[in-house]
């Protein structure tokens, strides 16, 4: 068992085009560090200075992790993690 991580199009260059990969860890921070060992470069696109990047949304089983414990959210085997860059912009 492992945790399935769904990868957005923009980050699939790090996963050889795969839409979903598996990873392990007790928290999201560990999970992303584990991903980094096989998909070098991906962690920095998600995490900055130990926190989730402001314009990257991470969901644990459909829940935005900002409403949980952010990057310290606990994860377990069988969970499903989805990464989606925010769709944002504006003239500001």
């Amino acid at each position: 068992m492992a945790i399935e991580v769904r990868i957005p199009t923009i980050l699939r260059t790090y996963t050889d085009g795969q839409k979903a990969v598996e990873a392990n860890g007790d928290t999201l921070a560990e999970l992303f560090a584990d991903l980094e060992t096989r998909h070098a470069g991906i962690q920095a696109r998600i995490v900055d200075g130990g926190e989730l990047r402001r314009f990257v949304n991470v969901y644990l089983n459909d829940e935005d992790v900002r409403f949980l414990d952010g990057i310290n959210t606990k994860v377990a085997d069988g969970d499903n993690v989805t990464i989606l860059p925010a769709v944002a912009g504006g003239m500001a």
Partner: protein
Amino acid sequence: MLTITQALVDRIVAHARKDHPDEACGVVAGPAGSDRPERFIPMLNAAMSPTFYEFDSGDLLKLYREMDDRDEEPVIVYHSHTATEAYPSRTDISYANEPGAHYVLVSTADTDGLGDFQFRSYRIVEGEVTEEEVTIVEAY
């Protein structure tokens, strides 16, 4: 080049008009790999701001799940500028994360003398903006 129906252009412009003075935003999805915008999906601007837009994070997940289930992709990502021309801002460029999409901008201002409701389309790839021609058709 973006090829789009008049009906879809009208719906995007109508959405921008309705939400003015806030920025309006949304997606037109189409079959994966087709480059054909078909399904108009207006989104809520969670920022509710005249100078910024952001899809609500819950809506964003629902949208991408749905497109995935239907084997669609975001062919167009659109938003409006309410006081400046329909050209991608620095903010737009730094958050543009769909290199395969046409970024459509609609201006609800008339600051540059080009008339109301300019409708322009761009590719934004790795920080590079390229404007493209828009061909409006009655049907595909």
